[in-house]
């Protein structure tokens, strides 16, 4: 039930502000659903995979997707994701929380000004 609400909120914020759902899902999984950092982040990424799959098929049917441009940023993105996951596995949950809080705070300030 909590997961349903978190997912709904993530979708709402994603549509309203163009932020990916992860920025909403990760803190809510940690603060509301009692996840520790790593499972929260791994599970969030799996949910994003599903969302992006459905979303890109929908947009592709409307002809709004540019596959070449997607490859230019997406393929280096895959390499970065492997590196990011490697780094994540070597940080303590506590360090991850502080780093994620810093990312959130930075975004919050960016949205405020």
């Amino acid at each position, binding site marked *: 039930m909590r997961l349903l609400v978190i997912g709904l909120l993530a979708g709402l914020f994603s549509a*309203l502000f163009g932020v990916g759902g992860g920025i909403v899902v990760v803190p809510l999984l940690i603060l509301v659903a009692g996840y520790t950092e790593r499972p929260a982040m*791994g599970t969030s990424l799996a949910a994003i995979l599903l*969302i992006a799959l459905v979303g*890109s098929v929908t947009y592709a049917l409307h002809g709004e997707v540019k596959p070449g441009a997607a490859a230019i940023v997406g393929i280096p993105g895959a390499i970065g994701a492997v590196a990011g996951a490697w780094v994540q596995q070597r940080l303590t949950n506590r360090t*991850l929380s502080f780093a994620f809080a810093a990312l959130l705070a930075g975004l919050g300030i960016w949205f405020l000004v």
Partner: protein
Amino acid sequence: MWALLAAGALGLVAGMLAGLFGVGGGILFVPTLALVLGLTQLHAEATSLLAILPAAAAGVWRQRSYGNVRWRAALILGVAAIVGVEGGGQIAEALPEHALRRLFGALMLAVAAQVAVRAWRKPAYPS
């Protein structure tokens, strides 16, 4: 050529954020596609979803082998989020965007503080 290199480098950083924090990386993908590669905002947002796929797939592949993925929860979150996107699109048209952005910014600051305080109170432990 420089634009391609810059776009690739920004894609790499976006992927690192995805693997490190479990966020999609769209925060970086969308501006990169729009400002560096010159796509329109609509095309950039649509294309960013396709660009996230390889990054998320690679990240999930690694996260799964580290034992961090709870599939059932991910499925529930994903399906609920897709429903939420539909509702959000309708709300977005009805409300003033500027006020919404500020509210969201303040909310993010509050959540950031809470995440940090929670990590501060909890004893540091390995693994």
